[in-house]
Structures are given as structure tokens and as C-alpha cells.
């Protein structure tokens, strides 16, 4: 009789947990995603011998279109990247070539960083790509966090599983671990300097670490961000790459 009494409670608690997880990642999506945005950033790559910083300006509309222009250092200045749907082109001024990056090249590092082209291209909402489950609560960086386990519900995703530490108050991921299908930890990112930008919380510093690579990781800092801007359509054309 006691057993029969517990069964509905178990189902009830599972239901609450699943619903909560969905609600959490939905609120995370609302903070992290936007219809469009324009931001300037610096990317510092910490290698074994030296560190290197590059600056860039990016424009993006939803998860389908984005355009990035590298502003410094001199060797990379003028290099541009255009993403349309699931295609990526790079323009290099030194060769005056527009090169399409596809296939396994998308898994290569961007500018020697701990980020791959695939990472840069993945801009879909978490709710569209993953099923979430609350695995527990933990304190991280002096903030109370939910620990969420995310499992891919679509095939075309770079990481089959994610583990996220979500700030309970601001609905922002503070730490993330990305796993392969085999269960191997591939990347870890730490998000910090969370700021209030146009009514939403947003982390402005992200340290990525490719766990299969030596070095101290890549620090990505957003130096300025604006949401819901009017971005001219021509920016997202191949013609804009050569301009």
C-alpha cells in the first residue's frame, strides 16, 4: 500500500523537475538569444609560448546569419567571416579569396583559439536542440546554481551532451561542460562579468578551454553589445566580404 502511495509522488516529482528544467533553459535562451545583435569583442588566445589578442566586430540576426570582421592585429585585419544558414565563408584580404569552410574543417580551430568554426556557427536556442534535466544544485563562483544535464534531441549538433551551471537568480550559465557522444569531455567554458544590458543579464567574459588541446584556453571578452539593432541586409552577402 505504501509503495502504491509513493508511485504518484515519484512521477509528480519527475514531472516537476522536467518542467522546471525546460523553464530554466527557456529563461536562459531569453537572456542569451536575441533577434539581432551587434557586438565588439577581444579574443585572447593563451598559447604555450605566448598570448595573442585580436579584436573583431560582429553582426548577427537570429541563429541563421552572422558576419564578423577582424580589426586587429595587422596580419588578421580585414579578414571577414560570413555565416548564412549552415554555410560559412572566409575572406582573406591578402589573397583576395572567398573561401568556403565546410565538412570536417568546421571542427578546426578559429584563429588558433579553443573555439571551432562549428562552435561559432552554433547559435540555436537550447530549447530547440536539447532536452534538459535538473541534476541538482551547487554553488559556483559564490552564486547558487542549478546543475542542468542537457541531452541532444537533434542529430546535427556538435556536442551530444552538455552540463550547465545556471545562476538561479539571473538565469545565466556560469559554467558549461561539453561532451562528445562517447562521454568524453571536449570543452569547458567559464562565463563571468555578468552585466545588465538592455534589460537582460549577459555574461561579457567567457573563457573557453579545449580539453584536447594544450595551453591555457581562450578568453573572449565582449567590449560592447547592442541588441535589436537595424542591420542592413547587404552585410550578410558575399559581396560584403570583399568591401
Amino acid at each position, binding site marked *: 500500500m505504501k509503495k502504491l502511495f509513493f508511485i504518484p509522488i515519484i512521477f509528480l516529482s519527475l514531472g516537476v523537475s522536467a518542467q522546471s528544467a525546460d523553464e530554466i533553459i527557456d529563461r536562459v535562451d531569453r537572456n542569451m538569444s536575441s533577434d539581432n545583435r551587434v557586438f565588439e569583442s577581444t579574443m585572447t*588566445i593563451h*598559447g*604555450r*609560448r*605566448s598570448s*595573442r589578442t*585580436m579584436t573583431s566586430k560582429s553582426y548577427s540576426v537570429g541563429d541563421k546569419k552572422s558576419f564578423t570582421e577582424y580589426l586587429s*592585429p595587422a*596580419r*588578421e585585419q580585414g*579578414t571577414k567571416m560570413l555565416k548564412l544558414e549552415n554555410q560559412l565563408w*572566409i575572406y*582573406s584580404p*591578402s*589573397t*583576395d*579569396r*572567398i*573561401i*568556403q*569552410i*565546410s565538412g*570536417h*574543417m568546421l571542427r578546426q*580551430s*578559429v*584563429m*588558433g*583559439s579553443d573555439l571551432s568554426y562549428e562552435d561559432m556557427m552554433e547559435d540555436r536556442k537550447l530549447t530547440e536542440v536539447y532536452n534538459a534535466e535538473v541534476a541538482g544544485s551547487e554553488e559556483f563562483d559564490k552564486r547558487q546554481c542549478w546543475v542542468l544535464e542537457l541531452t541532444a534531441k537533434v542529430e546535427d549538433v556538435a556536442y551530444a551532451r552538455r552540463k550547465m551551471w545556471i545562476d538561479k537568480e539571473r538565469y545565466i550559465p556560469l559554467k558549461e561542460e561539453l561532451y562528445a557522444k562517447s562521454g568524453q569531455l571536449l570543452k569547458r567554458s567559464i562565463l563571468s562579468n555578468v552585466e545588465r544590458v538592455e534589460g537582460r543579464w549577459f555574461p561579457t567574459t567567457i573563457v573557453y578551454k579545449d580539453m584536447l588541446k*594544450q595551453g591555457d584556453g581562450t578568453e573572449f571578452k565582449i567590449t560592447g553589445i547592442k541588441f535589436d539593432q537595424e542591420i542592413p541586409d547587404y552585410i550578410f552577402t*558575399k559581396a560584403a566580404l570583399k568591401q
Partner: protein
Amino acid sequence: MIRFLLKGLLRDKSRSLIPLIVVTIGVMLAVFAHGYINGIMVDMIEQTAKLTTGHVKVMTKAYADNIDQVPNDLAIMNVNEIKEELEETFPDMKWAIRIKFGGLIDVPDENGETKSQGPAMGIGMDLLSGNSVEAQRLNLQKTLVRGSVPAAPGEILISEDFSQKLKVNPGEEVTLIGSTMNGGMAIFNFRVAGTLRFGNTGLDRGSVIADLKDVQAALDMNNAAGEILGFFKYGYYDDETAAPVIAKFNEDFADNKGDFDPVMLRLRDQEGLNLFVDLAKSMGSIIIIVFMVAMSLVLWNAGLLGGLRRYGEIGIRLAIGEEKGHVYRTMLSESLMIGIAGTIVGTAIGLGLSWLMQTYGLDISEFTKNATTAVMMPNVIKSRITHADFYIGFIPGVLSTLLGTMLSGVGIYKRETAQLFKELEA
């Protein structure tokens, strides 16, 4: 006694001719096979040395630890100065700066946009400075399928299969996309000078060769390179020659043991070549055993036949009072003489054939033209005569005749003296 036995052998040809022919042929084959197989294996090791490992290779310690990833961010800095130092310290060796790199080769269409592309492994080597022997070392001229060897900056060689896959021809432009040694994006235009065939599946799938200076410019590696390959000026690779070079290098160069200090590796310590080097070394023993067993079986059989033929003779010798042991020992002595004579003749013929094969070789380029193998194969197969070829035949030649006679001669001890006269009467 020896003269007596020798006379017997010379006068009774049926006693000595067949064993002598067997030993001669066996030893000749053993000596020739040893030189031939040794030649092939050494050539394969040398091909690998010329292309990737050198007889010794100098890298930074960090690069050597991650060599499979071709980590050019961990390359040797001030590489020209280090090469000069190596040339001074080891005047009997030749040194070559190389950069291995990975990347994407992209072929543009008429609008400069991607027409086709594929992943490639590349080697940057000195092709254009006047005193470089790198093109000859890799026999680039002979492996060319179309076009020519780079003669000007900005030119590149591409494997024939790769060029067909990318639909690119000599004279057309391609773009290399890779990483600079600082981790930046490297995009560099080359003109295809020619296509070549390595004869190795992996290399033919997607390889490029460009001049060192172009690769240094493309990958932002000014006066830096991943590897310095060292080649023994005289002779082939062997562990004994490499050992003092390594010891001297460690004494003079690698005293700090830091991550970016240079380290030197022998050929056998790279790319799992230790097994291959050991196999090449033990080839002599393998051939000796194979031929010894085969020849012993044949000579045992010949000894049995000889024993039957000499049944009467041995019977008389025993009947007139010669001891069985003495008869057995004289037969062994005869075998020893036949073995030595056959070995000398067989070794001489085997060495002669090996010399022909070493001098002229066997050109198999026509057979390997369209074939791809998993290993680096030379175009001309040549024997290689070593000092071992002069004595290697004596072991199977002499031992197998003795062994064959020892086995077949056991029958002597089974003869019963009481039966001898009956047998002789019959």
C-alpha cells in the same frame, strides 16, 4: 687422411656432385636473398628517412612530445643559427630544415570563390636555394607526373591523386588555409608547378610540397621550423652510427632540458620504425635458419640415397675391421669438405648476382605507377652487399651438410657385423 678423403671425393663424382650442387645452389640463394631483402628493407628505411624522419631529427622537446599533431606553435626558433651550429659540430652529416604542416587546399573558380577543396598534409623544404640537394634527395624529378619541380617562389607540388580529386592542373592557382605558428589564420596563394606520385596511399591522398621560405611566409614562421633532419653523409642509417651523434648532441645542445630546448631523436625512435629496423637487422638470422632447414632436409635425403649406394662399401669397411665410429667420422669429414667447397662456390656466385643487382637494380616503377602501397617503396629495387654476405652462407652451407650426413649416417650404427658377410655374399 684428409688427402685420402679428398681423392675419394674427386674420383667418385657420384659421392660428391649432388651434395655439392645442393650446397652451392642453397648458399647462392641464401647470399643473394640476404643481399636482396637487406637492400629492399634498407631502401624502404632510407626512403622514410629522406621524406620524414632523417637519420636523426632535431626538434624542440615540446614538439617531439606532440609530434603526431605537427605542432608548429612549438617549433624551433632561430633555426638557421641552430643548423649552422649543427653543421660545425657534425661536419660528417648533412642537415635539412623542414616544416610539416596541415591545412586545407582550396581551388578557386573564375570568380575567386571555392570550386573544390580538400585537407592536405604538406612539407616545406629548401627547393630554391642554389646549394640545396632536397629535390634530388627526394627524387622529385623522377616522381613527377605532370608539370615541373618548383623553380620560383610561390610554386607548389601536389600529389597527382589529390590534383585529380580537386580538378586542378599545373599552372593553376590554389590557396592554402592553415594555422600560423602563433595560432592565427594562414591563407596563402600558390601556383601548382607540378603533380607527383609518392607510391604511398596516405601521401598520394593529399600531400603538397613547397619551398621552405614560402611555407615560412605562409605560416608566419620567420627563421623558425618544426624539424631539422640530419643525414649521415656516408652510408645508411644504423644505430651504431647514430649513438655517438646523439651523445654529442646531448652534451653540446640540450643541457637545459626545457620544453623549447632542442632534442634529437634517432630514426628508430620515430614513427614506430624500431620494429622495422630490428627486422632489417635480424633478416640475416631468419634467412640462415630458413635455408639451413631446407638444405638439411635435402642433404639428409641425399645422404640416405648415398648411404644406400655405398651400402656395400661401408659393409666391406666394417667387415675388414674399421670401427663404426671411424666410418661415421670419415663421412662427416667428407661432408665438411663438400660443405666448405659448395659454400665457397655458392657465395661467389651469390655475391656476383647481388653485385649485378646492386649495380643495375630492378626498375619496378612501371609496376608501381598506378599502384599505391601502404609503405614507401623505392622505384628501383637494389640489393645491398654487406660484409655479412661474405660469411653468411657458411652457416647453412656447412652446418646443413653436416646435419644431413649426421642424420643419414645413423644407419651405420644399425648394421650388425654378424650379418655383414651374408649381405656381401648376396
